[in-house]
Every structure is written in C-alpha cells, then in structure tokens.
C-alpha cells in the first residue's frame, strides 16, 4: 500500500494540485479557490506523518525513479528540513484559507496555481537532496514569485516584479554556474556525494563555487547587499504572497545556504566571512525599516533584519548558535507571515499602506490588532513570546565565544533590536492609541481571513508558552547539523 509518510509527496501533491487547478479552470473558476487548501491540508498531514520516522532514524530519504541517490534525485528530510517543511506546509494551508477571502482580482485561477507552485517550490528547496534539483526548485519558486509579485499589474508591482526578475535570473545563473563547477569537480550532483568527493579539494579550489552558489541563494535569501529587490517586491505582492515570501521563501534560501555550507564547505574561514554578511544584513534591514512610511515595506525590511539575525546565529557555528537560528526561524516564519496577513486585512479596510493612515485602526479591528501586537512582540523578542526564547538563545550562543568581535556583534544585534522596537512600537502606538484620520468605516477583517490569522497566532502563542518541545527539537536538529548527521545518516540509510 502507499506509504504516505513519503517526503516526495510533500512536493508531488501540491504540484498535482497546481495542474489540477489549471485543468479545472477550464471548466469552473470557483473550484480553483479551494484546491490549494486541500493541497496543503494534505501536506500538513503528510508532514506530520513523517515526524515519527524522522525522530526514529534522524533522516528519511525518498528516492525517485527507483534508483539509489547518487544515480537519481533523492529527497532528504532530517529534523531541520522537516520542521521547515512543516512550517511551509502550514503557512501554505493557512494562507490558502486566507486567500479565499482575500483575492478578489482576476485572473484568480492563475493566482492560485502560482501560489500553490510557490509553496511547493519552497518545500522543494527545503527537502531536495540534489544540487541541480535545488537549482530547479529555486527557479520554480522564483518564477512563481515573479508572477505573483506582478499580480496587481500596477506601476509599483510591475517595477518590483521586473527588478526581482532580473536579479533573480542573475542569481539563478550564478547558482547554476556554481553547481556546474561542483559537478565538474566531482562528477556528481547529489549533495552528500559531492560532500564526500570534494573532501580532498582544497578550500581555495572550492571557494569560487561556494561564492557563486552563495550569491545565487543569497539573492533569494535577502542577504545584504543582494537583497535590494526584497523591499520592493514584498510590499508589491498581494499580502498573502508577501506572507509566504517573507515567512518562508527567504528562509528556505537561507536554509539552502545553511545546508550547503554545512555539508560541502564546512570551513571556519567561511563562517567568519559570512558573519559580516549577516551583520550588515541585520543593520541595513533594521535601520531601513525604521525610516519606512509604507507598512508593508517596513515589514519587508524587518524581514531582512530578521534574516540577518538568524543568519548571524548560523555563522556562530556552534550547536547553540544553530539552535538559536532555528528557533528564530520558527519565530520569524510564524510571526512575520501572520503580520503580513493581518496587515493585508488592514490595508483592505484602510485603503492605504501609509503608516499614518493606520492610526486608530487597532481599536476597530481588535482581533487583528491583538495578534499584530503579539507577532510584533515576538519579533522584537519581548517575553513571554517565542522570540524572546530564540533571542536569548542566540545571544547566549554568541557570548559563549568571548572575543571582542562577538561582544561587538552582540552589541550590534541588541542595538538593532532597539531600532526594531522603535519602529514596531511606533506603529503599535499609532494603531492602538492614535486618533483615526479619516471617517472611513473600518470593520474587522472577514471571518475567513481572521481564521487564518488566529490559527497562526494561536500556534505562536502555544509555542511561546510551551517552548520546551521546540527547544528540544531544535537542539536535536542543531546537533545533527553540527555532527554532520546529514551526511553520516544519508550514507548509512541511502547506501551511497
């Protein structure tokens, strides 16, 4: 019988639904609305069914075409990729519900197809075990995102979409060159296999390939200075798409960098090199966010900042640092996507993206505003929300290495947290206590949209107040990554 706990289903089912949407749109337009919900609902179920296997073995490998990994493409799920996949599926599910009530612009069926494709691509990037397949997944995600960013077809959307497309294409080319260089060096494309075969290469030989891959993924992953498309593209997209873009897509690209760095290019110099990127990303993201007048643009810059933060934690190259990074990823994904969803609902009511117009909205849209506050607090790292635990972990991990550089980094991080607090509180304050400007009737967002928000919010609250399982899980995931269990287990289970 079919073993449903197969990671490949995480990709295959959304893709199936993508084509189903295309097919069904020939007959009925309204079916397309609801198909993504089923797709990602199934995905969530499957992801949850994979959990026991992963917990037992530490790694699950799914083959394609009936061949062992180096011969054919494989999907590899370990703890880290599993939880990212769960988050992605979950976000896909929740945002699909939201979409049903949010998208009211033609051509809807294309939107739903692309949206499903986007999330599928993200999951794909997360669980693939093959380097070229990663490039394909990268392109799937990008293409879907390009189309979705331009969805509104207005001036800003088109400009943002085009910028994103050009930068993304350059990134794709660089990524491909990097992958090909590795292929030229090793003759294989499987990540684990490359890791094995490239072990004898010197660091200098590998470095250019790494730099190209890093650049390609870094463009998608919003690392400074490769992230200039992001503050344009995230606000221009429909809010539900922004939520996926900010919440999980950049994270998935960063994950890919994690994975490749950790398995193939695990050198101390690299981490040192990456730390500068991380800190610059953090600084520029947060500082830029402070100056924004456009609420979605602010959130987008904040995404850059958060990315810098968890990327920094990754570059610490210690179990604790990685654990902090993973916790921060969970925090950021849940909070930021929730924020975008809420803000989307608010923009619908307010009719503007200017922060000044949001004065007093919090009093009218109470549920939304409440969860907005929760999400922002969590992002700022205020207790008792989950962001606090992750920030705590990151700082602890950073200060475990007592050198002046680390202390300086920590100071930067905390200063940037202050900046973050400054702009979030500015917004919250206006929203809850400001005088509403116009007489426009502002109502609470529709029930369906709220459902999505509340689901995410409750999950966030749950992990905030009961973080122990997540902490344990991320700790395991982090030590897996540190001990290179990905390679070891893949070798053991995959029979490479």
């Amino acid at each position: 019988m079919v073993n449903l706990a197969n990671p490949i289903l995480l990709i295959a089912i959304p893709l199936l639904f993508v084509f189903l949407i295309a097919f069904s749109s020939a007959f009925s337009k309204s079916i397309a609305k609801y198909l993504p919900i089923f797709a990602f609902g199934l995905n969530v179920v499957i992801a949850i069914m994979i959990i026991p296997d992963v917990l037992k073995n530490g790694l699950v490998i799914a083959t394609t075409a009936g061949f062992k990994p180096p011969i054919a493409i494989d999907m590899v799920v370990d703890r880290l990729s599993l939880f990212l996949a769960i988050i992605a599926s979950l976000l896909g599910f929740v945002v699909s519900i939201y979409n049903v009530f949010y998208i009211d612009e033609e051509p809807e069926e294309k939107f739903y197809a692309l949206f499903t494709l986007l999330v599928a691509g993200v999951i794909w990037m997360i669980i693939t075990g093959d380097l070229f397949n990663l490039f394909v997944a990268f392109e799937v995600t990008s293409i879907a995102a390009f189309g979705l960013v331009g969805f509104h077809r207005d001036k800003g959307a088109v400009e943002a979409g085009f910028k994103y497309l050009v930068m993304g294409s350059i990134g794709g080319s660089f990524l491909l060159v990097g992958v090909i260089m590795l292929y030229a060096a090793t003759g294989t494309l499987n990540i684990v296999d490359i890791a094995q075969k490239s072990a004898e290469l010197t660091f200098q030989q590998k470095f250019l390939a790494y730099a190209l891959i890093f650049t390609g993924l870094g463009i998608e992953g919003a690392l400074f200075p490769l992230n200039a498309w992001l503050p344009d593209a995230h606000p221009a997209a429909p809010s539900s798409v922004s939520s996926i873009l900010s919440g999980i897509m950049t994270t998935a690209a960063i994950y890919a960098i994690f994975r490749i760095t950790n398995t193939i290019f695990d050198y101390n110099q690299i981490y040192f090199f990456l730390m500068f990127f991380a800190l610059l990303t953090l600084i520029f993201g947060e500082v830029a966010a402070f100056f924004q007048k456009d609420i979605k643009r602010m959130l987008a810059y904040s995404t850059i900042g958060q990315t810098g933060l968890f990327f920094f934690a990754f570059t610490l190259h210690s179990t604790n640092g990685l654990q902090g990074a993973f916790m921060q990823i969970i925090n950021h994904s849940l909070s930021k996507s929730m924020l975008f969803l809420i803000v989307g609902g608010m923009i619908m009511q307010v009719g503007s993206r200017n922060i000044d117009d949001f004065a007093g909205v919090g009093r009218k849209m109470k549920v939304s505003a409440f969860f907005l506050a929760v999400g922002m607090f969590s992002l700022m790292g205020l207790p008792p929300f989950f962001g606090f635990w992750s920030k705590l972990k990151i700082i602890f991990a950073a200060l475990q290495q007592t050198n002046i550089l680390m202390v300086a980094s920590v100071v930067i991080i905390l200063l940037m947290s202050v900046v973050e607090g400054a702009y979030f509180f500015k917004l919250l304050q206006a929203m809850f206590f400001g005088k509403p400007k116009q007489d426009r009737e502002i109502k609470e967002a529709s029930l369906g949209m709220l459902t999505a928000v509340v689901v995410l919010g409750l999950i966030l609250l749950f992990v905030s107040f009961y973080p122990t399982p997540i902490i344990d899980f991320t700790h395991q995931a982090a030590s897996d990554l540190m001990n290179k269990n990905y390679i070891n287990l893949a070798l053991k289970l995959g029979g490479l």
Partner: protein
Amino acid sequence: MNMSLELLLATPFIGGLLTYIGGKVHRWVRNIFAVLFSLLTLGEMSLFYNTTFKGDVWGSLFGSKLILQTNPITWLFLLIVTSISLLVIVFSVDDMKHEEDHIVLDSYYMQLLFVEGAMIGIVLAGDLITFFMFWEIMSWTSYFLIVHGGKKSMDAGYKYIIMSIIGAYAMFVAIAMIYSKAHSLVYPDVALVLSQSSPTFTIWIIILLGVGFFVKAAVMPLHTWLPDAHSEAPSPVSPLLSGVLIKMGAYGLFIIFYGLMSANLAKNIMPSIFSTPVLLYIVQWLAALSIVLATFLAIMQEDAKRLLAYSSISQIGYVVLGLATGTSLGVAGGLFHALNHAIFKSLLFLAVGAVIYRTGTRNLSDLGGLVKKMPFTFVALVVGIIALAGVPPLNGFVSKWMIYEALLQKKEVFLLIMAFVGSTGAFLYVYRLVHSIFLGQLSQKHENVKDVPILMQIPMWVLVIATVIYGIFPGLAMDVIVKGMKMFGFAPIAYNLYGFPQGSTMGALKVINIASVLMISFVVAWIFFLLFSKSRKVSQYDNYAAGQVVTPELKYNYSFGFYMSFGRVIKPIFKISIERIYNYWVDAAKIFGDYYMRRVYTGNLETYNSYIVIVVTIAAAAVLLGGKIW
C-alpha cells in the same frame, strides 16, 4: 506551601485574563474581579511574612533552572507591589469611569494586573532568566498603561519603552555573559562565578546590569523618560509607576550589589573611596546628583504631576544612595525609604489624581483654594508632602535620617550635603504643590467641586494611615528589613519599635517622642488659642490689596512661576540638558541612517545588479589572491 509561590505569581496573570473576560459580561464584574484578584494576591503574599524559601524550581531553560524564591527582603518589595496595586485598582474604579470604550477599560485592568504579576515575578525570581523575563514583561505591560493617557502620553510612552528596551538589553548582555561562564543563572551560581572571574569581567557585569536598573530606577543621567511617562500616564497609573515600578530598579541594584556579589567581593576587586568600592561610590554620586538636580527641576515645574515625577527621581536617589553605602544602616535606610517612598508618593499621586478627577487640570496655576472643597484630599496631600519632605514624625523622615546617619558614619560628607540639600529643596516644591492646589484663591470655575467619591478616598486613607504608622513605628518595617538583610550578610542594627537607640547610629531617634511632644504642644497651643476671642471667617476676597478692590474675576493668586527668583539662581545648571544631548545623538543617528539608506537602496536596478557583481568579484579576487583577503 511550595506551590503557592507559583500560585502567587500566577494569581495576577490569571486574574488579569478573568478580569478582561469579566469585562465582557458587565463592567462591575470586571471591577470586582480586578479588586478581588489583587486582594487575593495581597492575601497570598501576606502568608510569606517572615518566611524564606530558596529555590522553588518552576521550569528550566537551556540548562538553567528557573527558580522562585522568597525572603524578607523580597517580602518587603512584594508588600509594596501588591498593596499599591490593590489601592491603585480600587482608585481606578471611579477614576477611569470617564473612559467610554469598554475594551480599553477591560484591557486597562488586565494590564494593571499583568504589571503587578510581572513585578511579583521580578521580586520572586531566583535566577536571572526569570528575572529578566518578568522585567521585560513589566516594561511592555507598563508601556501600555502609560499610553492610556492620550496624545501626549504616546510620546512619553514611546520614550519610556525605547529607553526600557535599551536598559533591558544592557542587562541582557550581562546575563548572557554570565551564562556563557556559568551555564546556570541561579543567583548562588552567579555569585560563585562572579567571585571566581577576573575583576574586569565582574565589573563589566555590574556596569551592564546597573545600566538596566538605572534606566528603570530613573537615576540620572538615564532618567529622561520618567518625567514624561509619569506625568502623562493616567492618574491611577502614575502611583504604580512612581511608587512601585521604579523600585524594581532599586531591588535590582540590591540584588546585584548584595545578592550576586558577596559582601567582600566588591572590596577585593576594586579600590575603595571612603571605604566604599569605587563602583558603588560612583553610583552614590549619581544618586546624589539625581537628588539635587531633580529637586531643582521639580522646584521649577508648573505641572503637578511633573513636579511629583521629578520628585520621584530625587527620592529614588535617596534609595539608591542608601543601598550603595554598603553599611547595614545605609542599606536598611535605602530599603526602608523604598517602602516609604512607595507609600507617600502613591498617596501624593492619588491625591493629585483626585484633584485632576474633579477639576480636569493639573496645571498648578489653574488651581487654588480647593481646601474648602476637597478637605479630605487636602489632608491626604498634606500628610504626603510632610512625609516627602522628610519632616518628623512621618515615615519619610525616618528612612532619610537613617541614610544621613549612615553617610555620616562613613564620612561621605559631600554626598551627605547633597542629600540634605535635596531634602531642603523638597520643602520648596512640596509647599508649591499644596499652596497652588489647595491654598489661595478658589477660582470661580471650581466653585462646584466636591470631594472625590468614597472609593477614591479609601486608598488615600489607607496610605495616610500607613504613612503615620511607619513614621511613628519604624520598627515594624525594620523587623522585616533587618531580618532579611541578615541573610545577605549584613550586621544587624540596633532598633526598637519607635526608633533607634544610640549605638549603631551616631545619634538616637525615638520618633514616638517627637510625635507625642508635637501633639501635646499642638494641643496646648490650640487650647491656648481657643482661650482668646473667636475669629470671624471672611471671604477670600476680603484681602489687603493696597487699596485695590479684589473681585472674583481677578486672578489674584500668586502661583505661576512661584520660585522664579530662585530659578534665576539655578539657571546656569539648566543650560545643560541631558535630554537635549540624547536627542542630538538620536537625530544625528537618524540623519546618518537615512543618508546611507538613500545611497544603498537607490531604486536603480543597475546599482542593485552591480552589487551582485561586486560580491562575486570580491570572492573571485579572493581566489585569485590565494585566499589572502581575510
């Protein structure tokens, strides 16, 4: 019994939620819930009188245990927190009635209880994570309370929360540094680590933690949030902020100075001045500067709550000054002053709040003559200002006296002089307060003002009684303080119920004698006074005015710029404004940040693409140079 620490901590939080839900039912359900739960908290708290628990583990995080503990010192602070919170909630019931929006009120009570719970958490914490966690919760919940006050309060709250976050992150760094050494943040472990680490490390820890506490305690130069926040907050919130919240900073200082650093540690790792470790000596100086400068500022205020807010900075200076002396007497004085200040400052804020409730203004020059309309409030305010000014026989006097004695014993005379000056300055501004609000000409628009409702009076009466009792029987508080301080390694000080025999102090004090003699002389003088012919009450306009006819239309009261001539004397001091310095730097940083944003995110795709190429070029160059770029 072990469970009940957690219960004590949980009660306000649960109560807050229930209160919020209760508000959906009816506003009285909400009010009763709020009062009941704060009462319940107070009751639970009282069970811990004179008890000590070390280490009630309630969880663990990253390998560090989370611990709740209690001892008499924490009990003292618990007393402050729970009692003032209760009174504030009772006061709020009527005071906040004008707010029509139900949700706002529901969340207001919820936040009040949350702040209370957070502060209980801070006090009960037995490890730094718990401490820090509740510290942050306190910051943001109190922020929401502050911004309930309207437009201006938003800026004030913003300043408050930003400074709080900065302070909190300074603490955060320190905590993380400790954790990286100890992998446990339970106080004894931390103390052990501090005693074994290099002095530089320890000093940095103290400085970083100290910055966090200084922000919250509003010790100069980190005080700039306080005058705005305390004055713009809703009337019932101000006492909570001034009376209780800033005491958390004082508690934190007590914990680092005497809980985390063992008694001799500070002396061993740094040189001493006047037998005080340098760091503590600096703290003392900052506190003394706070006392004097804040007093000057308070004298010049035109706004009743702002005046009281500056006075809070000044008074918390005494607390910190006492705590930093390091002698039994000084620390006991500091702790006692924390309690006393909580009592009388809450009393004052409530009284001023009552006036605002009835008149709608807190501008001193708009008020006057209210003694005839609001006698109860007047009495409360007078008792409060007498205590604040440190005049015997009320409570403010005893604690100040203890601090003076401690300083004198240590021969820290310059600090002592500053403390004295601040105290005399207090006469000026407290008189200003009572004069401009209650004495003098009653303006026409306040003809119909009544005294406040009974629910608002009760808290004031309770505080008046507490002021008198702790003033005349300082031994009541000293029981707790001395017992608690013994646990932190302090030598006991000689005291009795009525004061201090000469022994551990340079002079003796017996407040009950002062009080009784004063009462007797007062009664005698009064009787003597009554012996003579009765006096005839005349209208307030029946005045000597050098021939001018005084009519109600005339603004006759002298209340604006009351100490203008004194202002001319201290003008040079105000040329330097700490706030202006901060603003300058913030603006500079903003301009700087904006400038660079405009050069990085130009909106030009060419530029963006060239970034990508540059990154790759750097990598390529690195390869070509043989990896020598790093």
